[in-house]
């Protein structure tokens, strides 16, 4: 055996021992489905005529960022304080949480945010676009006119609002009773609109001449004059002396021109003005009977208002059509015909017909007509059909080559006459004009289509101005799209109110404030449908550690080098703010 050199060191080892991580394996190549962050539209937003980004508002509220939440509303609606009180909140009807337990109290939260802003005298930081040369006149300072002025100003235009009455606000000031909308709230929000740069000229009636003048200083005129004249009942005796008009009655109350009422008052009608009239009359001491041709469920008035009216002692006579009014010893005798339902239609109001000529009479001391209104001047209404006319969902545009473009908005064109629709109208008009000025008439409709909230018709200014939320998909998130495993049952907050007895002592606001902790708790109930609220489930559950936090506005990104496309992040996203796409359809890079 050969002599060997003494061993000084053992020979090298080759053992199964790691010296690298697995990060060299780009397991993303396994993927055939690709998860992506894609925010969608919440059903509440889509249902909001003003297109408020409610999911985001509630997210910010839940985080305690009240100012940001309030500003988020202001981007779409200059009247959170007003709408937080008088809006009929169709948003809550569509709230996905309704299928889980109860809807989120969006309405109460909107008011809370406005109240908070007011309490701390917050000034919104709203970005105005650079000034444009065009000037726009706005006729009428009701909600649609003020909204038009507001949005036009945000878009960089000079807007002059003309109001015939000595104070701005239109129906908000003169038509809505104080127990629903205190004056201070309205004044604050109008002041804010003024501060933004909207010029409001009160006590200035506008003549038809303004519309025609070829040398007008205005490039466009927004007509938002509203329906201030009552519709006639078209029955004998309706013009008898002393038969009052509901809207005028409400205005007079606001002016302090109405004394207490004694005896019984009848209010004819089923809309909000009728209900407001009834409730106001009740507060002034009358025993009130509300007379309506159809049934309670057919009333155009907001159900909640009807309910409160009944609570306050207003009597509702359904299926009673007035056919004659007669004067008798200073009282009125109203002859009523019984009606019956011919056809029940769940979506629409019931069709009715007289019930075999059955009649009754009622003797009242006060009689109010409130069956709806119309424009006080015929030229306020848009013409039937004309060249250059564009009928949009919330306004009608009439473009003329040598004259100012006319936009008819607000109640003049609205099917549903609500403040939110008026805001929608003003916003649509402002954006439509901006498109018209920049790209011409033909671009208006298609371009508006791109800023729809969900399927529309409401539109978003933020989307139009390409704000961060403009990236959200128009697809509306439905209940089954959500992963509700992450939500706990929690009852909806109830609106604190004055006791019934307290309400009759004055016109003080019925609905009371809620505190911040309650508001946060309520806002936390919001599913934030389609919206990333940074819950981090995508990051938490990723088996590949392929979701990484970063500094982009979304706060995280997916590392497609490793993402195997399992889809867990998409399913575990409680709010459907992600999607899973087929890999082949998109870029692998």
């Amino acid at each position, binding site marked *: 055996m050969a002599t060997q050199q003494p061993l000084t060191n053992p020979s090298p080892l080759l*053992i*199964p*021992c*790691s010296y690298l991580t697995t990060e060299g394996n780009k397991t993303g190549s396994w993927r055939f489905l690709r998860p992506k962050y894609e925010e969608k539209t919440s059903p509440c937003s889509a249902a909001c005529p003003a297109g408020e980004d409610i999911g985001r508002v509630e997210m910010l509220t839940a985080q305690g960022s009240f100012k940001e939440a309030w500003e988020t509303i202001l981007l779409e609606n200059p009247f959170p304080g007003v709408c937080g009180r008088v809006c009929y909140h169709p948003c809550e009807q569509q709230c996905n949480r309704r299928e889980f337990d109860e809807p989120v109290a969006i309405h109460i939260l909107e008011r809370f945010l406005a109240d908070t802003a007011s309490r701390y005298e917050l000034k919104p930081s709203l970005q105005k676009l650079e000034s444009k040369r065009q000037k726009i006149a706005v006729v009428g300072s009701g909600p649609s006119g003020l909204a038009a002025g507001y949005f036009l100003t945000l878009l960089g235009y000079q807007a002059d609002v003309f109001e015939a009455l000595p104070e701005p606000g239109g129906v908000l000031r003169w038509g809505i009773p104080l127990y629903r909308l205190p004056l201070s709230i309205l004044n604050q929000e109008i002041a804010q609109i003024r501060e933004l740069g909207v010029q409001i000229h009160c006590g200035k009636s506008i003549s038809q001449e303004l519309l025609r003048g070829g040398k007008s200083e205005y490039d466009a005129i927004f007509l938002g004059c509203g329906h201030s004249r009552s519709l006639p009942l078209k029955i004998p005796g309706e013009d008898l002396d002393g038969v009052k008009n509901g809207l005028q009655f409400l205005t007079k109350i606001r002016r302090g021109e109405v004394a207490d009422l004694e005896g019984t008052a009848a209010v004819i009608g089923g809309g909000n003005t009728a209900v407001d009239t009834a409730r106001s009359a009740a507060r002034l001491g009358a025993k009130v009977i509300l007379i309506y041709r159809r049934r309670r469920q057919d009333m155009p008035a907001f159900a909640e208002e009807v309910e409160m009216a009944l609570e306050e002692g207003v009597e509702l006579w359904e299926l009673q059509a007035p056919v004659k009014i007669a004067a008798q010893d200073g009282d009125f005798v109203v002859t009523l015909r019984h009606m019956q339902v011919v056809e029940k239609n769940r979506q629409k109001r019931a069709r009715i017909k007289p019930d075999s000529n059955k009649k009754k009479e009622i003797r009242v001391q006060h009689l109010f007509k409130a069956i709806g209104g119309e424009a006080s001047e015929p030229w306020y209404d848009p013409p039937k059909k004309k060249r250059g006319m564009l009928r949009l969902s919330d306004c009608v545009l009439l473009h003329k080559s040598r004259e100012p473009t006319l936009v008819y908005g607000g109640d003049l064109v609205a099917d549903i006459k609500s403040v939110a629709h008026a805001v929608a109208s003003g916003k649509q008009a402002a954006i439509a004009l901006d498109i018209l000025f920049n790209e011409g008439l033909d671009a208006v409709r298609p371009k508006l289509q791109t800023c729809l909230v969900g399927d529309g018709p409401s539109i978003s200014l933020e989307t139009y101005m390409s704000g961060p939320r403009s990236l959200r998909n128009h697809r509306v998130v439905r209940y089954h799209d959500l992963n509700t495993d992450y939500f706990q049952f929690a009852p909806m907050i109830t609106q604190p109110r004055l006791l019934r007895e307290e309400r009759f002592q004055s016109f003080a606001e019925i609905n009371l404030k809620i505190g911040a902790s309650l508001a946060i708790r309520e806002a936390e109930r919001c599913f934030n449908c389609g919206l990333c609220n940074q819950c981090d489930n995508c990051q938490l559950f990723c088996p590949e550690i392929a979701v990484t936090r970063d500094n982009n506005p979304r706060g995280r990104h997916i590392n497609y080098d490793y993402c195997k496309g399992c889809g867990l992040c998409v399913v575990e996203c409680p709010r459907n703010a992600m999607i899973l796409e087929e890999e082949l359809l998109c870029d692998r890079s």
Partner: protein
Amino acid sequence: MRQVLEGSHAVSEAVRLARAQVISAYPITPQTHIVEQLSEYCANGTLDARFLRVESEHSALAALIGAASSGVRTFTATSSQGLALMHELLHWASGARLPIVMAEVNRAMAPGWNIWADQTDSLAQRDTGWIQLYCENGQEVLDTTIQAFRLAEWVNLPVMVNLDAFFLSHTYEPVDVPDQKSVDRFLPPYKPRFQLDLANPCAFNQLAPPNIYMEMRHNIQMAMDEALTFLEQMEEEFESILGRRHGAVEAIQCDDAEIILITSGTVTSTSRQVVAELREKGEKVGLLKIKLFRPFPVNMLRERTASASKVAVIDRNFSFGASGIFAQEVKAALCNFPGHPPVYSYIAGLGGRDITMEVIENIYWLTKKSTAPENESSWVGLREVDHAVGQS
């Protein structure tokens, strides 16, 4: 210091002197005395080690795999069935390159139950990547066990020290037990080449695909080759400190022998006497003791048997369908060398049957008389059995 020690306790003393740190074992006759003594040492603080009283031999070795991977000196002892139960982990220990030392008391495999000496248990584990050493007496057991740690830690392979059941494990002999200082000189504290380490977190024993598995296996063979060289070097060092050496093989009067008997374990001692007596009668007989079975000392074997005309291998073990296992190895070692002597295989002493001087002498005469090996193996001392009785 010279003490009269049981073979089992020679192991225990060696483990104590080697300062093993984690010991794990499951009792099996005839291994028990080894671990009882160590248990005592751990309990009374003589040995600063953790003793894991596990629920099976499998777990005993598994625990040591965990401990050795954590960079400490480890020891276990077992026998027969226990070793068989460890089989899977024998591979694991060598594949993971862990210097675990095991005392293996050679006992027959069941059934029928048999607790007596037989090497088939450990030889059946020859392909598991363990270095295997077979001891002849108490002194060799003690010295070899100490050396086993040094060897294992150098080549990063586990070492099995084998001793025959009862003939060695339960036999008292005078044994020189070295002092701790000398042993410490020979065997410094274990310096692991790798270990589970928070500062350098690695994963061990993970998936090894075809592109690297073979190289890893070859690396083990390289270590086996190195073990042969290192063993010699290590024995020199041991001798310089403690004055003894045993050798991978030991040749007794082989230089001029015509017939060389090849043995392992305790049979060697008896054979030494037989060879001495035959030499007195003028027989040209030699004795070759094989201590190192894995790696198999092929070259040494060839050199030591070069002059002989016949070699006779006495196996206290058997590979069914083949022959004695040492005989197989010897044949395999010699077959590629032209003019190598024929190899006779004798099977004796299975299941603890005595291999007396007469048996060994008989093997010598049978070999001398034979012109060529007739069978793969000759079974020596088989009794006449009435086969009809066994059937029912």
